[in-house]
């Protein structure tokens, strides 16, 4: 036995040594694995692109185009042939709900790294008292920020130093002579570099050498002692990373890293002040890599803490006032979460479903893991004893270095050890409380919860008795319910919930509300719609809470600021609105106090969003209020970040407010001007960009405010290079257009030297800016054409008019704009002459760019400068470019062709046969695209052909087109119809070939086509013929068309419906209203509502075009049909009819009065509603024409309806009364009103006061003469003696 023990001891000792070696070797690897060796900012944008505003200005269509350009797709003709089912779905707007996070780029995703900071002190609320030690005051936060900055700086220095060391060492070693050494040295150097990178990460937690650490260790000892009164030390507020490193000091016996540290010792004393949520190490400040991926990875790693990334926190408890009961600063309470009872000890899936954010995959993963764990659980002592013989074995102590694995799922096995019985197999007991993937029914008519909602709304599922809850709890629950309804509910649920949240905001309290809303907004699975709704909730609640929001301002900003840089325009607007309301509610001082610490935050993202938020505050509270603060910030000596952000705020203000900066321009420029000579390059750049933004906003005024910056700017362009130079040039480009002609010319010449030098710059950004500045310089008055021609043009064309420029869309656009601007100065011939040859270039994008430029130049300057030779080249080139085009986007070529041909007018005549030959040939092409382009081209040049007296050619084209009416591709058919329409318009009905009487019957079947483009073009053509050439077609054909048109009333596109209704008018005019009317009246009997509505409109149009007396008798006769739809249709037609005919109505009012009487007394609500709106139109039409007797009669029928409650009816009735007010004068309506204003029944009074109010708003002055005479009583004088005066 003795020897055995010794043996064992020896083996153990050996193992210990090996482990120690291994630990020493692998310590670095471990950390590297955990923290990652790469720079954590890799892949992030470190700064915003120079002209970001341009990027933002991109509208959705442009983005769409860019997207299309970026990817190859099948040709459109193929796509068009696909069944249209899904396409229409998309068109109707049924888009899949999209998660915001899916479309965010890395930079925007940084919003998730921010924490919702704890509440802050409201300096206004407490008056003169000194703040409670537990409350976070402004000073605390500023200290924290300063500390963070210092740390970052120190870390940077350390890293730098290490790198230098490594380099030096590498250099020293490499100087050594032998070859072998050199080889090893290089290896060592590489290793050293990686090591330094790795140790850079490590610094934070466990290196003890830094002086900073020593300092902290001292603080830590005091801090570890719970009895010491810590005061409002900065450690309390948020666990900064430095805080964790404190724990790694020798005070703690075992070697701990931050993972197994208890979150909040020392916090116990002020736990009720700081929300628990901010406390768990999961919520470390922004920028930690380990929480950047809130993924599953956590499950596999050894410590329970690791799993709780900050997303897994239970925000339901955020800020709740319950202090953590058991949170002592003891060394090992791993699972202490604020939830007390529900901790990680036994995470049954049921619990997890409630407490943790679980995606469905995670559910599966967990279930699977639990299963595996069950099978592989460690054997208990009893089991082992049963298995092994009792003798010959010795139970050893576990080695000292042994640490049990603490996976939560493994730990869970600690609980259900089977007591007695056979341990080998037991029938698993069914756990009814477990829920795997079927979500629990939400009680009480609540909407469905998504899996990710359990994290926030899980509490609603637990059936706790209402009576057991405290007031706070029940309030919380109420808010939760309402929020869930807003987030996931049906529209009506949402509306009521929103309304309740708004109405009761003050009673529910700012704290409980925001503590639930804000974490929801930070949820990584949020969708656009949900975010919109939640933001709306905040907006409404803000109004109500007013000054109560003060402690929460920063929290709100943290979640709202990201909206300001969202790619969605409406999100940006929403964000601005909220921040603006917030600043009005909280006041300037609070806003500044909340945002000041973020201004020199170490994270660029935070500073960027803060600057934008500040600009919104400025626009809400006025620039002057913010000026002193801005001045102070921009002159900050402490950090360049503060200056940078301050200047950026000015830039954002300029972008946001536009010309509203003008009154403060001088002071704004003065505030930032010193930034041009700042020592930091970034500050210089942003200053120049801000000046550019200010000048852009102020244009064309305010040059005198920029006087002081001209010199540094122009000096700057000589001394700077690269990005800074680009920014300076941009500023100059925006300032020059503000100048007088003389100065502009002088300064342009100064800057042009640099610009021409930079023409050659390979930097894309620089290219764009240079182009823009050239455009701005050239467009000012003082710059002469000869100067441009000699100095700029040769270099300009040599450097910019190259194929490569056509490939990038933004370059393309900028180049075209600049060239057009240059052309405005130097004339068409110069520019077109230089580029015309390129129309035959082999690169299609380049040809397109040339074409677009020519089009724009010719469109603005005409073609008179183009001489015969150039004209020939131009037409030749255009024809070539037109024929060679292959891309989908044909508009540029078409427009270019059309513009040039139209500008040249009669000079095109010699080329027309050639053009028409091309068109005819292409109309016959195999490719649908080509045919369509050819037809489109006809509609563009038809006018010019007429000018050139080429009627015969046009007639010929008409016949050709007529022959192609059998076209099967709807897009092409639409274009062919369009071309026919253009020809008909130009040469008239009589000269048209084929003759109209042949053409129209051919069009009738095409009306049946359901394709929108076909429908639109066809109905336009038919309408045109009905308008101008109806006599060429027999009446029977027109009737046939009438029947087809009825179908078209159902079209989705409004333009088609309108054209159809108009066509009815033309046809009725051509063949008399009777037949058309009969068709239309029959159509009133159909079931479809939209169809009936369109029919009534058509009837009214027919009445308008053919005089009402032709239509009214038939219409009124139709009212006798005892059918609801028909009668309503008639009433609606009457309503439209009186709307259209206006004062013509005075001749018919007596005729229709009996009918309206009847309708206004009908039992059916819709009758009365429609009749009331007819009365309204009638009254408005005949106002002042002497029909008061009939109107008063009708008013007597309308008046009893004022007590209707159905919204449409009451609306119509109120409008009818308004109409009567106009026609009869307010006095009469007032006399109707007086009987009910002081009626004993409140319901009656309410209605009458409503009528009185609208009467009062409509005719306040007119009522003065009609008010009743009131008797004086006692001390009050109610009479109006002035009205009794008589001369």
């Amino acid at each position, binding site marked *: 036995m003795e020897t055995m023990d010794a043996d064992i001891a020896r083996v153990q000792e050996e193992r210990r040594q090996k482990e120690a070696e291994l630990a020493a070797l692998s310590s670095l690897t471990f950390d590297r694995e955990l923290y990652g060796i790469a720079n954590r900012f890799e892949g992030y944008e470190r700064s915003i692109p120079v002209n970001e505003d341009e990027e933002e200005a991109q509208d959705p269509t442009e983005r769409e185009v860019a997207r299309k350009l970026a990817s190859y797709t099948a040709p459109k003709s193929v796509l068009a042939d696909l069944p249209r089912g899904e396409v229409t779905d998309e068109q109707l707007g049924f888009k899949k709900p999209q998660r915001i996070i899916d479309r965010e780029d890395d930079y925007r995703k940084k919003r998730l790294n921010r924490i919702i900071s704890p509440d802050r002190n409201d300096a206004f609320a407490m008056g003169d008292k000194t703040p409670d030690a537990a409350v976070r005051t402004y000073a605390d936060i500023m200290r924290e920020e300063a500390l963070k900055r210092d740390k970052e700086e120190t870390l940077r220095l350390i890293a730098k130093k290490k790198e230098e060391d490594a380099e030096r060492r590498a250099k020293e070693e490499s100087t050594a002579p032998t070859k072998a050494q050199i080889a090893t040295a290089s290896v060592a150097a590489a290793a050293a570099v990686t090591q330094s990178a790795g140790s850079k990460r490590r610094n934070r937690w466990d290196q003890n050498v830094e002086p900073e650490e020593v300092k902290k260790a001292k603080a830590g000892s005091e801090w570890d002692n719970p009895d010491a009164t810590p005061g409002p030390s900065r450690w309390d507020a948020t666990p900064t990373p430095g805080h964790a490193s404190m724990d790694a000091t020798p005070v703690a016996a075992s070697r701990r890293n931050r993972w197994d540290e208890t979150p909040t010792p020392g916090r116990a004393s002020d736990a009720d002040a700081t929300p628990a949520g901010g406390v768990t190490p999961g919520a470390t400040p922004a920028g930690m890599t380990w929480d950047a991926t809130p993924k599953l990875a956590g499950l596999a790693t050894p410590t329970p803490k690791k799993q709780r990334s900050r997303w897994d926190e239970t925000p339901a408890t955020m800020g709740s006032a319950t202090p953590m009961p058991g949170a002592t600063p003891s060394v090992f309470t791993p699972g202490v979460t604020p939830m007390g009872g529900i901790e990680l000890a036994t995470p049954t899936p049921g619990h997890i479903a409630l407490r943790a954010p679980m995606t469905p995959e995670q559910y599966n993963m967990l279930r699977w893991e639990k299963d595996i764990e069950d099978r592989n659980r460690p054997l208990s002592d009893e089991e082992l004893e049963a298995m092994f013989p009792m003798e010959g074995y010795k139970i050893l102590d576990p080695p000292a270095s042994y640490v049990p694995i603490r996976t939560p799922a493994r730990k869970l096995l600690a609980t259900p050890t089977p007591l007695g019985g056979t341990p080998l197999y037991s029938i698993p007991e069914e756990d009814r409380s477990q829920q795997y993937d079927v979500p629990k029914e939400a009680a009480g008519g609540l909407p469905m919860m998504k899996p990710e909602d359990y994290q926030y709304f899980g509490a609603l599922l637990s059936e706790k008795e209402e009576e057991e809850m405290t007031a706070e709890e029940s309030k919380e629950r109420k808010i939760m319910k309402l929020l869930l309804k807003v987030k996931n509910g049906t529209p009506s649920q949402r509306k009521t919930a929103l309304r309740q949240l708004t109405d009761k905001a003050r009673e529910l309290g700012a704290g409980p509300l925001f503590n639930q809303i804000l974490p929801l907004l930070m949820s990584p699975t949020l969708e656009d719609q949900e975010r919109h709704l939640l933001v709306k909730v905040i907006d409404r609640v803000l109004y109500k809470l007013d000054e109560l929001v003060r402690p929460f301002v920063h929290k709100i900003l943290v979640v709202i600021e990201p909206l300001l840089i969202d790619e969605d325009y409406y999100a940006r607007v929403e964000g601005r609105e909220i921040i603006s309301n917030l600043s009005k509610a909280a006041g300037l001082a609070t806003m500044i106090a909340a945002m000041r610490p973020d201004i020199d935050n170490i994270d660029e993202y935070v500073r960027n969003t803060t600057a934008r938020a500040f600009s919104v505050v400025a626009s809400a509270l006025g620039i002057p209020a913010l000026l002193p603060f801005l001045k102070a910030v921009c002159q900050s000596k402490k950090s360049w970040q503060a200056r940078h952000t301050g200047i950026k705020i000015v830039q954002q203000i300029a972008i946001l407010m536009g010309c509203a900066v003008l009154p403060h321009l001088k002071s704004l420029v003065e505030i930032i001007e010193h930034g041009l000579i700042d020592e930091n390059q970034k500050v210089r750049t942003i200053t120049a960009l801000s000046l550019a933004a200010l000048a852009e906003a102020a244009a064309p005024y305010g040059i005198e405010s920029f006087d002081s910056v001209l010199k540094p700017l122009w000096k700057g362009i000589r001394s700077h290079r690269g990005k800074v130079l680009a920014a300076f040039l941009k500023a100059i480009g925006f300032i020059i257009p503000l100048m007088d002609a003389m100065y502009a010319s002088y300064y342009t010449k100064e800057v042009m030297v640099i610009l021409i030098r930079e023409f050659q710059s390979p930097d894309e950004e620089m290219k764009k800016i240079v182009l823009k500045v050239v455009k701005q310089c050239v467009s000012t008055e003082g710059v002469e054409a000869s100067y441009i021609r000699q100095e700029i043009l040769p270099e300009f064309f040599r450097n910019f008019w190259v194929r490569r420029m056509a490939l990038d869309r933004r370059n393309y656009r900028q180049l075209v704009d600049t060239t057009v601007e240059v052309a405005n100065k130097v004339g068409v011939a110069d520019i077109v002459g230089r580029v015309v040859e390129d129309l035959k270039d082999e690169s299609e994008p380049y040809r397109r760019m040339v074409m677009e430029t020519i089009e724009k130049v010719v469109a603005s300057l005409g073609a008179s400068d183009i001489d015969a030779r150039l004209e020939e080249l131009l037409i030749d080139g255009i024809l070539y470019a037109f024929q060679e085009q292959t891309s989908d986007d044909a508009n540029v070529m078409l427009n270019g062709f059309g513009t040039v041909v139209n500008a040249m007018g009669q000079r095109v005549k010699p080329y027309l046969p050639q053009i028409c030959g091309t068109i005819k040939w292409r109309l016959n092409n195999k490719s649908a695209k080509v045919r369509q382009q050819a037809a489109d081209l006809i509609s563009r040049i038809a006018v010019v052909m007429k000018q050139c007296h080429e009627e015969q050619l046009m007639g010929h084209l008409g016949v050709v087109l007529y022959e192609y009416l059998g076209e099967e591709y709807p897009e092409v058919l639409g274009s062919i119809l369009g071309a026919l329409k253009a020809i008909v318009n130009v040469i008239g009905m009589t000269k048209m070939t084929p003759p109209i009487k042949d053409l129209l019957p051919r069009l009738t079947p095409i009306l049946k086509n359901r394709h929108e483009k076909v429908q639109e073009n066809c109905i336009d053509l038919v309408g045109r013929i009905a308008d101008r050439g109806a006599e060429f077609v027999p009446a029977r054909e027109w009737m046939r068309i009438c029947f087809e048109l009825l179908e078209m009333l159902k079209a989705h596109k409004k333009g088609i419906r309108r054209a159809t209704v108009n066509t009815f008018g033309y046809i009725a005019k051509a063949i008399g209203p009777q037949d058309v009317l009969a068709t239309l009246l029959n159509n009133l009997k159909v079931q479809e509502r939209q169809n009936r509505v369109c029919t009534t409109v058509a009837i009214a149009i027919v009445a308008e075009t053919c005089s009402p007396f032709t239509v009214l008798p038939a219409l009124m006769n139709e009212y006798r049909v005892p059918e609801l739809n028909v009668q309503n249709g008639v009433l609606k037609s009457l309503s439209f009819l009186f709307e259209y005919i206006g004062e013509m109505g005075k001749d018919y009012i007596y005729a229709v009065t009996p009918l309206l009487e009847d309708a206004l007394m009908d039992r059916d609500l819709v009758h009365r509603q429609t009749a009331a709106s007819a009365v309204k139109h009638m009254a408005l039409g005949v106002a002042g024409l002497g029909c008061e007797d009939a109107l008063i009669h009708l008013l007597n029928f309308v008046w009893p309806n004022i007590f209707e409650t159905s919204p449409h009816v009451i609306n119509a009735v109120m409008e009818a009364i308004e109409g009567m007010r106009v026609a009869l004068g307010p006095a009469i309506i007032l006399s109707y009103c007086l009987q009910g204003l002081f009626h004993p029944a409140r319901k009656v009074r309410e209605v009458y006061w409503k009528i009185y109010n609208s009467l*009062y*708003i409509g005719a306040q002055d007119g009522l003065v003469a009609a008010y009743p005479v009131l008797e004086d009583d006692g001390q009050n004088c109610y009479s109006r003696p002035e009205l009794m005066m008589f001369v």
Partner: protein
Amino acid sequence: MYPDEATTRGVASRVYLDNVCGTSVAASDRFNINSQLEHLQAKYVGTGHADVNRFEWAVNIQRDSYASYVGHYPILAYFAIAENESIGRERYNFMQKMLLPCGKPPDRDQED
């Protein structure tokens, strides 16, 4: 709004919150266009509501009247002739009278 005593608070607030969330009022006439219309009307001074009393309405009438007199120059001139005052004096008088056109408001309980 609801009692603050610690004992009754829990129950009271719950009852209260239930009322908050109850949909007892018909949702239809809460959100229709008319409610917006009334909101709009309420923005104008001089409009009334079901609980306006005689005094408040009379004050509005008087003020409207004076505003109208001042606003129409011919009427002002007419009054000036009738009272043998200058037009400016008349205008000034009317403006002054707009301050408390009907005297002090009557006591609340007297009115009710």
